[in-house]
């Protein structure tokens, strides 16, 4: 098998061939390592990548299979991990100088689950520092480039995780999503990205950004692969008290059941302005296709969703300012030299260790929480959050899912929004509402622009109903093969 350009190579097909003995995990790992050798440094997808470690993990999987151990459908599947997921003994920096050289003494819950399942780690992917950003340009190390057009951003903050899957350097990956950080890069890179329901996946070992919003989510090239990866990581874990037993694996056959009789709501009020015409045309194409497949398309309203960005940019920085207080230069990571006393050591370490975006958010969050402003900013934002959440509860009582674009525009150019933080934040208008509501949300590839840039559409559903979102996306995917298109940078590669 040559796997030219890896077009049909999904996690599911790899799992089958390794599980049935048609191919060893080591052969698979070698193929992906070779691809990454060709493209990873040009794309800036990885912060840490050690082929020896990857190949050793693959050999271990083969040894387990040889001993007769029954492994999961992900056995031998190369998976990339965002660099804010703790990996025992493997550097974990969150794209920040302040964690330079840090090697966690433990694995995150999702990493434990993937190791047990027999997945093979390709490396730690680049991201915006502490997951704060929408372009991966806020990485303290280097930016990631979009595999479809290296002059453009891959989205963020999980830009490395989305780009590495799009470029076939990994079969699947994990990112984290606080306000869209899995969905937006998935949309920009032409792959699937799921933000599970708040509480569906344990965050134990995910470096915290905004704890009332953070979720870990799968990125993949097919809807079925999303289900396989979600199944490997979901459910209750005693080490994250927000994780819930209601999060159950999705039967992959159920993803094939189609949309006949389903009701899908389009929030026309929210997408009335500022949306790229090609993105709108794509929304209409998706709606038409799903209607042909038997779904009913309704108009719905989310009247408070337009307050989402303002709400989010109070809540998330407030929580971040508290979560990031732990980086003090005492126990791990970077410490500034030459401070004369402890207080100065803290301030200089943090001033030099955190990048501009992170410092800006710490300042904003500390301000919003400080005496005199708490009621006007943070408390008010939490009340508006209640209204936004109610919009979804009301809408999802009439519709099985909400359908809207993942982003207002196709991927933008590197540097285009870097000097205007507010313009960068406004790009998240369609992804943040579901984050504030705690609802599951899936971005799926919905075609390309005339200039060959990916467009992503988004589905938002009821709590713990990820399966319905995958059914809808799978129905569209069956009629369109965009998901398996390969960007030029990867298409030239012959394994």
């Amino acid at each position, binding site marked *: 098998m040559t796997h030219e350009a890896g077009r049909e190579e999904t996690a599911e097909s790899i799992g089958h061939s390794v599980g049935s003995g048609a191919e060893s995990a080591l052969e698979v790992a070698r193929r992906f390592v070779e691809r990454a050798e060709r493209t990873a440094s040009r794309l800036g997808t990885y912060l840490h990548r050690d082929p020896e470690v990857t190949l050793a993990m693959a050999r271990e999987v083969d040894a387990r299979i040889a001993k007769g151990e029954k492994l999961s459908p992900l056995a031998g599947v190369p998976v990339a991990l965002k660099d804010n997921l703790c990996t025992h003994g493997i550097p974990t920096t969150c794209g920040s100088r302040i964690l330079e050289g840090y090697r966690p*003494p433990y694995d995150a819950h999702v990493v434990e689950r993937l190791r047990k399942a027999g997945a093979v780690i390709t490396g730690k992917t680049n991201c915006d520092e502490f997951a704060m950003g929408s372009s991966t340009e806020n990485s303290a190390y280097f930016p990631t480039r979009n595999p479809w057009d290296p002059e453009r951003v891959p989205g963020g903050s999980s830009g490395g995780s989305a780009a590495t899957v799009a470029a076939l350097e990994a079969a699947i990956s994990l990112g984290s999503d606080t306000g869209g950080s899995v969905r937006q890069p998935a949309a920009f890179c032409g792959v699937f990205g799921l933000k599970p329901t708040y509480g569906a996946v344990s965050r134990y070992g995910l470096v915290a950004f905004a704890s*009332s919003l953070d979720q870990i989510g799968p990125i993949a090239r097919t809807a079925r692969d999303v289900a396989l990866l979600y199944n490997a990581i979901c459910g209750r874990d005693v080490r994250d008290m927000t994780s819930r037993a209601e999060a159950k694996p999705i039967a992959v056959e159920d993803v094939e059941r189609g949309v006949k009789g389903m009701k899908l709501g389009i929030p026309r009020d929210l997408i009335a302005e500022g949306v790229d015409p090609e993105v709108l045309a794509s929304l209409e194409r998706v709606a038409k296709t799903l209607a042909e497949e038997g779904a009913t398309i309704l108009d719905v309203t989310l009247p408070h969703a337009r307050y989402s960005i*303002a709400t989010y940019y109070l809540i998330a920085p407030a929580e971040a300012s508290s979560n990031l*207080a732990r980086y003090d230069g*005492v126990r791990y*990571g970077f410490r500034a030299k030459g401070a004369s006393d402890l207080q100065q050591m803290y301030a200089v370490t943090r001033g030099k260790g955190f990048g501009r975006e992170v410092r800006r958010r710490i300042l904003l969050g500390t*301000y919003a929480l400080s005496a005199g402003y708490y009621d*006007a900013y943070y408390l008010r934002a939490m009340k508006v959050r209640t209204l936004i959440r109610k919009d979804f509860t009301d809408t999802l009582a009439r519709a099985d899912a909400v359908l809207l674009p993942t982003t207002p525009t196709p991927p933008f150019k590197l540097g285009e929004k870097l000097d205007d933080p*507010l313009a960068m934040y406004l790009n998240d208008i369609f992804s943040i509402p579901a984050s504030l509501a705690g609802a599951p949300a899936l971005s799926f590839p919905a075609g390309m622009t005339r200039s060959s840039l990916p467009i992503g559409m988004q589905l938002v559903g009821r709590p713990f109903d990820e399966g319905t979102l995958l059914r809808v996306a799978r129905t569209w995917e069956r009629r369109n093969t965009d998901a398996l298109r390969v960007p030029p940078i990867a298409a030239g590669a012959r394994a």
Partner: protein
Amino acid sequence: MPIDAKVVHQVAALSRLELDPAEEGRFVKELQSILAYVEQLQALDVSGIEPTSQVGSGVKTPLREDRVVPCDVREEALAQAPDRDGDYFRVPRVV
């Protein structure tokens, strides 16, 4: 609630962040523009609305069994220290 260089300076001190004086002006401008944007929330009537601090906070907190589990990572954790003295983290002068 205007934000100016003095406020940014105070907030930076509360956050234990030493800022380059040259950067302070830029932070003032950026924070002003973000705070002007979030002002739109003042237009909403939120009287009688309960705050949502966390989705799912209404449900009963699941509890785990309270039992001792071994966690022997002391050496591995201390190995990460920027500066250590035996089994202690060493820091600059406190007082």
